[in-house]
């Protein structure tokens, strides 16, 4: 995390010398990737890895100080961001006009990465809020980056929505603090698992977590909170859209998974939701049942709205933005499944499915947005009606885009196949016919819009714009590297699966999480908190 901060500040200071700044930015990105790889190895993948590592800022013991935690889940997420971040950074160096290199583009890029990293690492709800704001502040500016009328408008709605979401987030945080007397996630899990021992009344927590869930759903772009996505993604530079879809969205997903399974899973709160005339819809002895039901509805709606919306768009970014909504539905669905199921095995499988799917989505969507960036900087347009015959003009770019589309659709041996396969597998084991029908519909829609985009932009007669296009080698190179990564993940799926498996275990094992953070027991300090 320090690395990113240093990179951000350094690139801020070096504004006068654009070349140096780019060099420093790239070095910062590379160093970030190296650190993430080291974390992956030492914390999770090494033979005798501890599974989690913590850092208590300022040496305050856990529930009082700020805690940073890396466990399998955080490490998995960080890896995705690091891969995509590097790709996007290299891409940025080629696509920006000279004037932009002098502006605050690169520092902001690093601040965005800083916010995302912080959100993955923090072990404390309020700090999650702060990192969200760091990340959002950078992303606001990127959405407004091109400075045209529709960009400012998109940015204004984006800012308004997120300010509102922040206020709601604060409400949730405040309420949880008042109810439980702590904000540290490990401490929270500990207290909720055994409310009696701490003298808590945990019932309000369900409602408060529902508030938080709506905030995270906004970040993740789940229906009904999806409306900001298409305009914002279209307004931001493509390489930033890649990051928004690949990284900031995953922060929402990460927060949902972390809070639902690590913090709430053991909570001792019976919930029951009865609809008049239908009877009991949701019942269970933990808030997960409720969260799962809500997520089901959101995910199902996302898959349909995203898929149907994507089929009718007239620009590639539009298609990708809507497809993003649909794909997040595919990620949220197994999460919902994991939340509602009682079987530990199925829950584990479903979380693995969600993570693998998230990885695939990060790679594929990152690749596609970067490909759009390459197309835009080559032809000056991304309207489907102005494109055609790109395949003949630049075969490597076409191959990259093709691989990305196929990964979205889920063709073996690409990474998308395993994502889809695991999601279907989880649904099949849950023996839920409507779920499978829903997934099939979503997949068919994916095939429909992927082929449509492909046909309209890469096949057919060359248009004037394509004829005059000059394709940048480095941009296409980045796209191809990501395509190789997708194929590599698909072919060498075994280690990836193990990593995702470890990540899912980490997400589900709240005891290990609590042990790693090791919050001070209340007996050591008198009663502590809860004086309300």
């Amino acid at each position: 995390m320090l690395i990113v901060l240093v990179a951000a500040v350094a690139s801020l200071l070096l504004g006068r010398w654009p070349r140096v700044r780019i060099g420093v930015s790239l070095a910062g990105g590379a160093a970030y990737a190296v650190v993430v790889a080291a974390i992956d190895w030492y914390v999770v993948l090494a033979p005798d890895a501890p599974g989690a590592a913590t850092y208590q800022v300022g040496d305050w013991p856990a529930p009082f100080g700020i805690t940073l935690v890396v466990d399998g889940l955080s490490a998995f997420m960080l890896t995705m961001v690091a891969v995509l971040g590097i790709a996007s950074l290299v891409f940025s160096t080629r696509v920006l006009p000279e004037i932009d290199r002098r502006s605050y583009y690169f520092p902001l890029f690093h601040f965005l990465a800083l916010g995302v990293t912080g959100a993955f690492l923090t072990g404390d709800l309020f700090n999650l809020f702060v990192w969200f704001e760091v990340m959002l502040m950078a992303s606001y500016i990127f959405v407004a980056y091109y400075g045209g009328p529709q960009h400012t408008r998109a940015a204004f709605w984006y800012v308004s929505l997120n300010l509102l979401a922040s206020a709601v987030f604060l409400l949730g945080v405040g309420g949880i603090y008042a109810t439980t007397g702590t904000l540290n996630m490990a401490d929270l899990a500990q207290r909720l698992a055994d409310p009696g021992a701490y003298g808590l009344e945990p019932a309000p927590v369900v409602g408060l977590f529902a508030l938080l869930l709506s905030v995270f759903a906004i970040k993740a772009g789940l229906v009904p909170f999806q409306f900001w996505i298409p305009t914002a993604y279209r307004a931001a530079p493509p390489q930033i859209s890649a990051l928004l879809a690949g990284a900031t969205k995953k922060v929402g997903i990460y927060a949902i998974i972390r809070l639902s399974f690590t913090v709430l899973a053991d909570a001792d709160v019976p919930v029951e939701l009865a609809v008049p005339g239908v009877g009991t819809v949701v019942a269970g002895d933990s808030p997960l049942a409720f969260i799962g039901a809500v997520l089901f509805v959101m995910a199902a709606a996302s898959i349909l709205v995203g898929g149907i919306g994507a089929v009718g768009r007239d620009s590639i970014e539009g298609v990708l933005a809507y497809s993003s909504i649909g794909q997040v539905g595919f990620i949220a669905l197994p999460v919902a499944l994991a939340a509602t199921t009682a079987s530990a095995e199925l829950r584990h499988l479903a979380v693995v499915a969600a993570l693998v799917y998230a990885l695939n989505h990060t790679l594929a969507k990152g690749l596609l947005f970067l490909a759009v960036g390459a197309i835009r900087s080559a032809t000056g347009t991304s309207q489907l009606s102005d494109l055609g015959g790109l395949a003949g003009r630049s075969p490597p770019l076409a191959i990259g885009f093709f691989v990305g589309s196929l990964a979205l659709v889920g063709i073996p041996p690409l990474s998308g196949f395993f994502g889809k396969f695991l999601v279907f597998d989880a649904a099949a084991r849950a023996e839920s016919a409507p779920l499978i029908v829903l997934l099939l519909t979503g997949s068919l829609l994916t095939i429909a819009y992927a082929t449509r985009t492909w046909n309209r932009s890469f096949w057919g007669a060359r248009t004037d714009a394509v004829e005059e296009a000059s394709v940048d080698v480095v941009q296409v190179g980045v796209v191809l590297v990501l395509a190789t990564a997708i194929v590599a993940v698909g072919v060498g799926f075994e280690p990836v699966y193990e990593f995702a498996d470890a990540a899912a275990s980490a997400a589900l094992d709240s005891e290990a999480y609590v042990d790693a953070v090791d919050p001070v027991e209340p007996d050591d300090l008198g009663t502590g908190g809860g004086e309300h």
Partner: protein
Amino acid sequence: MTAVILAAVVGALFALGTFLLLRRDLIRVVWGLAIISQAANVYLLAMGGLAKGTADSVPILAGHGDHVPQTADPLVQALVLTAIVIGFGMTAFALVLSYRVYEEHDTLDVSELGDRE
């Protein structure tokens, strides 16, 4: 008594903020956002507990010595301070952005911004 007043204040602020948020004038929308975030701050402060502070509510101090002053929960104050700073920055940014919108669209009326692409 304080609790009831505070609850009423938070409620009133939220109501006012939501009302402003739904106006057609962009500046009012920004005002609405600012007021809502202030309402959230007041709420957060109230969540620290309105009872007169005791040594129990400051576990950090309690863990460090015998002489604990009578004080309110300091954590919420730290939280609110952070939230105020962030909210302030965001409001400033939203204001600048609305000025930019005015420059480019020659209007601050939400309904006239429409969906021009």
